């Protein structure tokens, strides 16, 4: 086959998926071919869609991307049916020699009939002048024509809209958009992400029978029972959360409260503390969001050692003056380090620290955010941001960052 007999359609599914960030491995691709070879797709495009999804995608967070890619790849198939068929045959034979699957693939491709559908579709688009609902020929909503939304034709092409169940329709419906990782989800998912922060260690009271050591020591002891006890495994992570509340943070209040309850209940940390601040930290943080019970930052430094993980949550939006003015606070007269200076003290005391920002990262070039990003590793307050934070927190900050923190400290 010379006219593009390289299985470009199917290969392009593989490469488009990879390009879109779905990590399809060679192993996964071979599994896909094997499943096709065994006829699991039931000779239909719907079947192909389901088989491809369950073998090539390993997380519901990627269903949405998969749907988009699948819709894109199979809607823009430019070949006529015979070429497509030959393509697939030829290409499948090469890596796996799955000669036996010709009949089912043929059937699948016949059902697929993309080009025929496209031809009809274009004709009707040309004929159609008005919006149309129901009926069996026109493009519109409902109805049994292979075109339009919400229809029930087995291999229907779909033109935008919602509902519908055939493969391309499902692919286009983007029903899994809510599972995307770059979106913020619920408390449960946040808790699941935070739980990965754990660091299990055995410390404290020896309460648990260490069976393996008991057996070993007993054997060493010529068979006289020698009981060995050990402390149970516990999460050794201590986390302190500093939350910016009020003002520009109001639109994000619900999100932040979800994060708080996830950390509070779901984290399973050895110790967990949370404090509030408004806009920027100066000298004091507060135990309550009404700012009635102040706690001097110096007390935090005394009570919490450097092994604590510090997570700052805030939009880091502020007037540059608030960061740099060398008063104890923008509002009081007492002299002291600037806001930035206090932040640098925090960053210095807690090397395992990060900043979660509910603002989209396209705003992160704002001057105040920029200055704060020099001190703290900043992550978006979304599931993927949280994932990243969880991965980064246990690591020590890079020397450049430590150096910057020291510089700000000297200036303050």
């Amino acid at each position: 086959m010379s006219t593009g007999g390289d299985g470009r359609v199917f290969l392009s599914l593989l490469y488009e998926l990879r390009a879109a960030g779905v990590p399809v491995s060679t192993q996964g691709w071979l599994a896909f071919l094997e499943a096709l070879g065994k006829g699991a797709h039931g000779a239909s495009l719907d079947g192909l869609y389901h088989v491809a999804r369950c073998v090539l995608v390993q997380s519901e967070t990627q269903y949405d991307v998969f749907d988009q890619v699948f819709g894109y790849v199979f809607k823009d198939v430019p070949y006529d049916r015979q070429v497509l068929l030959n393509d697939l045959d030829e290409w499948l034979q090469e890596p796996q020699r799955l000669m036996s699957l010709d009949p089912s693939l043929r059937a699948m491709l016949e059902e697929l009939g993309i080009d025929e559908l496209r031809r009809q579709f274009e004709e009707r688009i040309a004929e159609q002048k008005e919006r149309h609902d129901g009926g069996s020929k026109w493009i519109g909503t409902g109805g049994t024509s292979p075109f339009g939304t919400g229809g029930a034709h087995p291999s229907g092409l779909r033109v935008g809209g919602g509902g519908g169940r055939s493969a391309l329709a499902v692919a286009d419906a983007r029903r899994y958009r809510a599972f995307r990782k770059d979106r913020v989800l619920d408390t449960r998912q946040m808790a699941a992400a935070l739980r990965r922060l754990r660091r299990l260690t055995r410390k404290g009271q020896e309460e648990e029978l260490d069976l393996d050591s008991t057996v070993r020591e007993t054997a060493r002891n010529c068979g006289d029972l020698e009981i060995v006890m050990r402390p149970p495994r516990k999460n050794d992570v201590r986390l302190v959360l500093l939350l910016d509340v009020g003002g520009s943070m109001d639109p994000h209040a619900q999100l932040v409260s979800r994060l708080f309850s996830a950390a509070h209940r779901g984290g399973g940390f050895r110790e967990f503390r949370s404090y509030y601040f408004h806009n920027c930290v100066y000298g004091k943080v507060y135990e309550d969001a009404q700012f009635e019970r102040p706690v001097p930052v110096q007390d935090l430094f005394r009570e919490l050692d450097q092994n604590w993980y510090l997570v700052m949550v805030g939009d880091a939006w502020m007037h540059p003056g608030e960061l740099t003015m060398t008063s104890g606070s923008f509002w009081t007269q007492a002299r002291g380090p600037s806001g930035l200076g206090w932040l640098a003290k925090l960053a210095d005391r807690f090397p395992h620290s990060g900043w979660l920002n509910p603002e989209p990262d396209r705003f992160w070039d704002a001057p105040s955010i920029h200055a704060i990003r020099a001190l703290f590793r900043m992550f978006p307050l979304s599931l993927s941001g949280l994932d990243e934070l969880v991965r980064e927190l246990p690591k020590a900050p890079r020397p450049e960052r430590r150096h910057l923190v020291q510089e700000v400290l000297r200036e303050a």
Partner: protein
Amino acid sequence: MNGQFVGTPDYIASTALRSAVDVAVAIERPLLIKGEPGTGKTLLAEAVAASMNAPLIRWQVRSTTRAVEGLYHYDTVRRLHDSRFGDSEVTDIASYIDLGPLGRAFEARERHVVLIDEVDKADLEFPNDLLHELDVMSFTIPETGRVVAAKLRPVVIITSNNEKELPDAFLRRCVFHWIDFPDRELMSSIVQVHHPDIERELLAGAIEAFYRLRATAGLRKPPSTSELVDWISALRHSGIPAEQLLGAKLPFLGTLLKKEQDLAAVEGEGRRRG
């Protein structure tokens, strides 16, 4: 291909799920099922076993479960006890070895379905420790040198509640399916499995109210299928007419919502709407 999974009279499966089961059986890979709590992940294994007419072995994973427990268990404590106080023959280690769920399925003469339930409960390394055994479907017991190899590769179904991420290497070897929350249509069929003789109006009303409730913003624990089924039992038991489900105040709300904050939120909204 032979023996396609079509669900059972008691278990309604979507096309995508049926297809995932077929693929997993065809290419002999573990099937990983994730989904919201109460979407019937565990029941799936029973349904697959029933439809294949194969025995089901269930392995419930806990936070302390180790991978080797699925393969075999060497009862050292019993052997130690026997050596000191018993009169049985302790030199034969083999008699202190019990096969675990996977081990039993490998040894069996007929094809089994193995359910590894809630794999995410265990330690992060747990799935990785099973990779090799699930790939080659055989393992060696070092204490006795015995090799346990699968005579017939069992169908392995693994469920996860998404409490933890699973390792990539493990995911790559699985056929994956996310069980969607059922849509209204599928939900009616599911309810009818549990309540075959339910009146049409009550079913429609209950399902409508159920989805309306699920759509309430900010629920901490949205009601799931099992709660709906229980709720309908309660409604039918007290003979509540379908019309009463149209209003803002739903009877037996506590059956649907298990969290106090959720109850308060929904009831508060009901009062505001009148």
